[in-house]
């Protein structure tokens, strides 16, 4: 990578159960605020609900908001925060040349229509014809657009004017890692100057919980720290976008880096082989570490799914580096989890210190030293291992 150039993070937009914006997150983290959990709305499951957000602030047209399901609103909102943070809001020329890579799932359904159909369908002489009739009369035509994965990116183009390019990656946790990796790779290689990368997830839905419930992977209340006791995935509503930029481009417009994104790695361990996740992650961690352990911390985006989280925790314990669990603070945001973790890692690096350990998470040790490097680890709940390195920019 000798001829590759630096990649700066010049903007971060973050919204989660802890609030919105970097300042609110740092206050909550440094102030030792515990995780915000909801154990009552989705019994028996526990989720981290989105903090109260005034969507009008980033999505001024109500007509636009109506065209989106909540996951798209969260993402479009976070993307707007990122562009504000980078000082790009309304800069048509730059936004028109900004590349976008979004990690997205989708599939938020009309649960009342589904429920009504399921209540009656088995009583019908011809269930499939009944289904046709019901869907045709009861589905909102625009709901489809609010479900399509690439329409988060589409909404960001419409609401914020980002139109340089637009790609949407799917594939759960890995899509978040790869969205950041491709945006980073293009800038590092000199084929892109500025990119908006990130994702969003809405945890507060039964149809989203259903996918995890099929394999009994959704965490049941009471909430528990994921590294110490991975008993399931506590999903969290969150959106995170980063503005990545070449130093030349940023300097020319007078923008300063929050931190430097120094590398992103994406791998796929053969999980049918015992020890494969640990071995893969260990190697990736060594690559990111590059022999430097001073002033370095690890931010874990572990999902809470038992097997991969145990493997990740074992590798983190062996690393000897100070560890902080992102998931314990804001929950698991699936496609958005790597961007969320990167946002918090970059925040910590820019502050130059770590926030306090969480009670009940023995892997988190007190650390009062300086932090200039943060390695994010993100092992998918089913597949895919991701690692990223954020460094202080000066």
């Amino acid at each position, binding site marked *: 990578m000798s001829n590759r150039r630096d990649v700066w993070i010049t903007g971060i937009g973050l919204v989660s159960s802890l609030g919105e914006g970097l300042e609110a997150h740092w206050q909550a983290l440094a102030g030792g605020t515990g995780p915000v959990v909801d154990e009552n709305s989705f019994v028996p499951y526990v989720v981290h609900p989105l903090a109260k957000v005034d969507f009008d602030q980033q999505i001024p047209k109500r007509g636009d908001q109506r065209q989106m399901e909540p996951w798209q609103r969260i993402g479009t909102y976070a993307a707007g925060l990122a562009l504000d943070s980078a000082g790009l809001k309304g800069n048509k020329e730059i936004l028109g040349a900004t590349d976008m890579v979004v990690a997205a799932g989708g599939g938020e359904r009309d649960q009342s229509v589904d429920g009504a159909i399921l209540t009656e369908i*088995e009583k019908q002489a*011809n269930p499939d014809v009944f289904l046709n009739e019901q869907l045709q009369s009861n589905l909102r035509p625009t709901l489809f657009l609010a479900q399509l994965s690439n329409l988060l990116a*589409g909404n960001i183009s419409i609401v914020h004017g980002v139109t340089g390019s637009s*790609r949407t990656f799917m594939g759960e946790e890995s*899509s978040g890692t790869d969205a950041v990796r491709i945006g980073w790779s293009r800038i590092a290689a000199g084929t892109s100057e500025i990119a908006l990368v990130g994702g969003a997830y809405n945890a507060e839905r039964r149809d989203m919980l259903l996918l995890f419930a099929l394999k009994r992977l959704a965490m049941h209340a009471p909430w528990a720290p994921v590294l110490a006791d991975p008993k399931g995935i506590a999903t969290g509503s969150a959106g995170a976008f980063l503005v990545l930029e070449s130093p030349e481009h940023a300097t020319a417009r007078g923008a300063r880096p929050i931190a430097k994104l120094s590398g992103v790695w994406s791998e796929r361990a053969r999980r049918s082989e015992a020890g494969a996740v640990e071995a893969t992650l260990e190697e990736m961690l060594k690559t990111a570490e590059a022999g430097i352990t001073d002033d370095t911390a690890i931010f874990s985006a572990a999902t809470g799914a038992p097997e991969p989280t145990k493997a990740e925790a074992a590798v983190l314990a062996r690393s000897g580096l100070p560890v902080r669990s992102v998931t314990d603070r804001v929950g698991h945001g699936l496609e958005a989890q790597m961007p969320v973790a990167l946002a918090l890692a970059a925040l910590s690096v820019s502050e130059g210190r770590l926030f306090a350990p969480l009670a009940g998470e023995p892997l988190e040790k007190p650390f009062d030293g300086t932090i200039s490097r943060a390695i994010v680890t993100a092992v998918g709940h089913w597949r895919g291992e991701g690692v990223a390195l954020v460094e202080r920019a000066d």
Partner: protein
Amino acid sequence: MASYTDKAGRPIVVVTGMGMVTSLGQGKADNWAKLTAGTSGIHRITRFPIDTLRTTIAGTVDFLPESGRTAPDLSEELAQLAAEEAVAESGIGSKGNFPGPLFCAVPPIELEWPQRRILAQEAAPNGPVSYDDLLRAAEANGHDAWHERFLYGSIADHLADRFGTRGQPISLSTACASGNTSIQLGVEAIRRGDCDAALSIATDGSVTAEALIRFSLLSALSTNNEVPEAASRPFAKNRDGFIIAEGAGALVLESLEHATARGAKILGVVEGVGEMADSFHRTRSSPDAKPVIGCMRQALADAGVSPDDIDYINAHGTSTPENDRMEFTGMSAVFGERLAGIPISSNKSMIGHTLTAAGAIEAVISLLTIAKGRIPPTINYELPDPAIPLDVVPNVARDAQVKRVMSNSFGFGGQNVCLILTGEPA
């Protein structure tokens, strides 16, 4: 010695293997014969009851073992067949050991009605069914396999296992431009020097009743139900919507240097890729066609060629009133008066709109067009639209020397990606 780099000093990216499946059949040979004979793969839907539906025709792939199972099952089978053909043709790597990453465009995936119905029946609530009931049944009844099947990443993951591609595969969607994006990501990775080869696949086996109804509710589909083969009418005055269809396309991409070193046959070159997003509307393109114009010009610039160098355009040509008019406007701006003399055809007149897969399938057909010196027609062109005068290669295939093709793909969400394809390295 010929150069391994293009005018911009980047590695030249070539195609050394191609595969495809559509409603016309499996494999390039069968598809090419039917495409050049002007055969339509559009037919009456038999997969689900068509009672009460406004559109009753589609280009579904009904001849495979997974046809009629879940969308991810069929999409995976289509992708696998297309990729097997492509990888075998290229002779790259060894069995189960592809020396590069996988970029895989996949359709939307979610639990489907048969699974929901089973969960609802297992839960058997006394009152109305809710998602709480489905959740209870999901936890209790051992449907573990559905978890993996309905993850967005599972199609690409299974393909990565089968073909032994490197690293974590990227699953992607840019709606109806997805096929072109899967190629674009491979081209970029090779140009960056990240890899010497990449496997680009785009697949769509997602024609269910609900998928059809969703597009129907947006008034995007043709309702020319009477004669299915005659329903898809790109650029014709009586076009009234697209025909939803299934299929897959796969391409083995390699650096010219890598392909040459192993003595591979070069099937074509991906000379340029252009992209520009549209912020106008969720489903409609900007009426001034500026993003599409920008996209085409960027593709030409990326290839280092001018509009005069294009011999044939493989149109997006969906057969919707709006797309075909907008595409005409865009092409008019880019090609000017010369447009009237450029043959332009839409494969969708025969195979319908294969959505996620369209770009990759049309890239394969574009390279076959160059190799065979024959342009597949736009069938069902009985009533020319005087507002958009074009040489659409109407109804009958045409022999022509084609050196360089522009292949367009546009999608919901403001997605636009254009490819410039040639037969041989410049």
